[in-house]
């Protein structure tokens, strides 16, 4: 992490100059406040007293094409950000991965009241409303369930973004302000606490004339309605006073907000930008006050360093890069070759030449599911020699499996075939292009010829789903949850198990993982799965991709949060303008 504060004071200039000269200069410059202490105190850094009032503009680095997060076409990180101040949150993870319920919606932690079947009780905050005086209630739970059920008899022709929750619900009942969700027999997720159970106000769907409860076609029509209409409703600290699809959202405080965090800002404009360059250009002129974009380059960091009045911090973000092998490939179907390929790749060297340009102290990722600072983190990767770039070790692995090398030092299989592989990556990602060349060089030392196969970013999805790769590098998003991810990546029946890994032992572990309700037990099993995947030499984690938060030095309580989809916007209620010291 490289926090940096840039007060306009002349005294700070030498520090800044050193930073530029030392190429990847580490450490923080002197001076309090800002993001300086975000490395040590990620949850509370940049906090302080807020002045009353203030109007700010926050940049979102992408656009959204509809207003309904439940719908596949609309759902995106950018819409999540755009609705951060109004949508109902059951709770949020903080930067240390701890989940905190939202006291503006609930008055207690969700509670597991029965294990068989699984029943979870939600104690609603009696003051929680949809911003129009209507209380949030059981109907809204049911509406959300229908929308995400993936069941044609509840919502006909719907395209829910996810159905893992909705398809598992058996019934929803209410008793006063307590709403109980009963799951069907198949459900036993250790992450029951974090399920999203609310999205839209059912009464607004009814008022708009949709008989959603009885008519699945009307249900679908009401979903389209929410997709096309700017939310007038709010369950958050702000309400939307003006908005344009894909362009901007203007927030003012929600007078009915029931949460304990008091809102001080008068107005927040969330505005969509199509590039980080444009965001920084506008920040330099003071027309934008901050942003936490999904990607950042070394050029951007240098621009931020030379801008006045802008604080920024770089830290591992909510995505991780990895290199995957296709087990359906004629060569890579052999675990020995897969292991040797990973042993030959020098991950630290790769990071040094790419991501370290952005984050000086960038670290290698050593666990697929848990980040280094997680209490569940264990390193089962280093011991296997994967990712250390040890050609001798890799050669021994192959030797033992009956491989040989010809006179030109080209690797030959036990059947005496030369080994040639392709390596796919997204061409617009400069870092991935460099990684590709470095891997190519590593594997050339092993006698494996790599043919680079860059494709356009729109081609990444098709390439993966069709399995048109031998080796491929891409990113997944990280979150403190891990149960769903493990099955998504590795279950032999998952459509996102792109390299076609089919390991019965792993499937058995994943079944156990999905069968426990206890989070600690689940984490233990998840690490078993990680160990199994490492043994299979299937996915080589590279790094938690560094990202930056940047904000005017006048903003207080703004800080990045990798664990939230909304990033820095996760605590938007607490944002404010710094009082004069």
């Amino acid at each position: 992490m490289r926090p940096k504060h840039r007060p306009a004071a002349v005294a700070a200039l030498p520090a800044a100059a050193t930073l530029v000269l030392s190429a990847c200069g580490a450490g923080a410059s002197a001076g309090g406040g800002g993001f300086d202490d975000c490395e040590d105190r990620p949850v509370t850094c940049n906090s302080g007293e807020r002045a009353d009032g203030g109007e700010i503009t926050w940049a979102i680095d992408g656009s959204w094409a509809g207003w309904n997060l439940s719908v596949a076409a609309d759902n995106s990180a950018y819409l999540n950000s755009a609705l951060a101040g109004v949508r109902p949150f059951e709770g949020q993870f903080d930067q240390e991965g701890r989940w905190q319920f939202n006291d503006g919606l609930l008055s207690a932690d969700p509670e597991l009241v029965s294990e068989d079947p699984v029943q979870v009780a939600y104690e609603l905050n009696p003051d929680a409303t949809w911003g129009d005086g209507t209380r949030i209630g059981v109907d809204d739970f049911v509406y959300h369930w229908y929308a995400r059920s993936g069941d044609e008899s509840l919502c006909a022709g719907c395209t829910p973004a996810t159905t893992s929750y909705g398809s598992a619900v058996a019934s929803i009942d209410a008793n006063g302000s307590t709403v109980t969700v009963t799951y069907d027999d198949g459900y036993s997720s250790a992450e029951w606490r974090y399920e999203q159970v609310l999205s839209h106000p059912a009464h607004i769907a009814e008022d708009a004339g949709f008989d959603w409860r009885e008519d699945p076609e009307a249900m679908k029509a009401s979903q389209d309605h929410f997709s096309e209409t700017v939310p007038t409703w709010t369950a958050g600290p702000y309400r939307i006073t003006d908005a344009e699809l894909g362009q901007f959202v203007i927030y003012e405080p929600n007078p009915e907000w029931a949460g304990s965090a008091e809102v001080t800002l008068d107005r927040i404009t969330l505005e969509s930008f199509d590039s980080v360059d444009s965001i920084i250009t506008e920040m330099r002129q003071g027309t934008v006050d901050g942003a936490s974009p999904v990607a950042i380059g070394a050029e951007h960091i240098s621009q931020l360093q030379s801008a006045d009045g802008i604080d920024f911090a770089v830290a591992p973000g909510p995505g991780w890069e990895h290199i995957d092998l296709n087990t359906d490939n004629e060569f890579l179907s052999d675990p020995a070759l897969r292991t040797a390929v990973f042993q030959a790749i020098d991950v630290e060297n790769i990071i040094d030449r790419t991501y370290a340009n952005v984050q000086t102290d960038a670290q290698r990722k050593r666990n697929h599911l848990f980040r280094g600072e997680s209490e569940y983190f264990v390193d089962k990767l280093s011991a296997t020699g994967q990712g250390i770039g040890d050609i001798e070790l890799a050669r021994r692995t192959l030797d033992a499996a009956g491989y040989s090398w010809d006179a030109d030092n080209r690797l030959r299989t036990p059947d005496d075939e030369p080994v040639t592989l392709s390596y796919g990556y997204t061409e617009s990602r400069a870092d991935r292009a460099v990684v590709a060349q470095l891997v190519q060089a590593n594997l050339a030392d092993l006698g494996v010829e790599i043919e680079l196969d860059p494709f356009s970013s729109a081609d990444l999805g098709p390439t993966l789903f069709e399995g048109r790769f031998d080796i491929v590098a891409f990113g997944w998003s990280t979150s403190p949850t891990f149960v769903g991810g493990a099955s998504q990546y590795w279950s032999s029946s998952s459509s996102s198990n792109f390299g076609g890994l089919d390991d019965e032992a792993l499937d058995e572990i994943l079944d156990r993982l999905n069968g426990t309700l206890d989070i600690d037990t689940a984490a233990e099993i998840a690490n078993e799965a990680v160990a199994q995947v490492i043994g299979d030499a299937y996915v080589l984690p590279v790094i938690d991709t560094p990202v930056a938060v940047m904000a005017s030095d006048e903003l207080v309580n703004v800080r990045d949060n990798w664990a939230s989809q909304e990033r820095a916007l996760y605590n938007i209620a607490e944002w404010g303008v710094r009082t004069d010291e």
Partner: protein
Amino acid sequence: MSNTTTTAFEAEAITTKERTQLQLVTKRFFRHKAAVISLIGFITIVLFAFVGPYLWQWDHRIHTEIPSWAPPSPEHPFGSDRAGRDMMGTVMRATGQSLKVALVVALGSTFIGAVVGAVAGYYRGWVDALLMRLVDILFVIPFLVITAAMAGNVRGGTTWWHMALILMVFGWLGTSRAVRAEVLSLREKEFIEAARSVGGSDLHIIFRHLIPNTMSVIIVSATLQIAFAILSESTLSFLGLGIQAPDTSLGLLIQAAESSAFSERWYLFYIPGIFVILIALTINFVGDGLRDAMDPRQTMVRR
């Protein structure tokens, strides 16, 4: 560019009569001072791009011994970028790639345009109607949009060769119209009649008589195609739809230095930009000079 003209001139220089015409054109061209200076300038840039890399110690790749963001100095006359590329070597490579695209486009699209124009003008009737409707169709599709759609989706990475091919396929419309107009009037001339009466095949007439006699139109349009291709290629690369890293092009270099124009690293923005401008500018002047030289009727008149 020099390639284009020499081959074209050789084609014309088959008989002695035409050699005098060549001399006449050359003489007139050398009277056009701006064009001559531009020709020298253009040749210098071509040498810089293609011979330079053999003389200069750095190429366009990242070298760990190059400091990042070195200001211009004798070791690195154009400075270096963030990752540690020598910008002199990088600009040589980028200019070379852009020029390769431009030259291939100029030759290729001029060839297509000349053949289509000559065939359409010679046969007239339904062939002409069909080809000209095709030209109309392509003309209606915005050039930048259709080339971007194709270049953005090349599998296996967009290289200079892909760029050249795509720009070529959509870049011949103007040439074909101009050549067709010339051929329409030429086909009624006596020497075509004569060639036909002695049993010359259509192919023979088109390639031996019609196209050589529209050479002045063709050469001028080929020249201007170079400028057009350089600008299109750099624009597409700038939009992220052209040549991709780790290879480089002038458009990519400008894009990387997008907001440096007034910073301490201004040279990263201006140098590649000036190279694009210089290439296009010199070519435009050379084209102007050629036009004047070949068509004494239109002194200093464009289009």
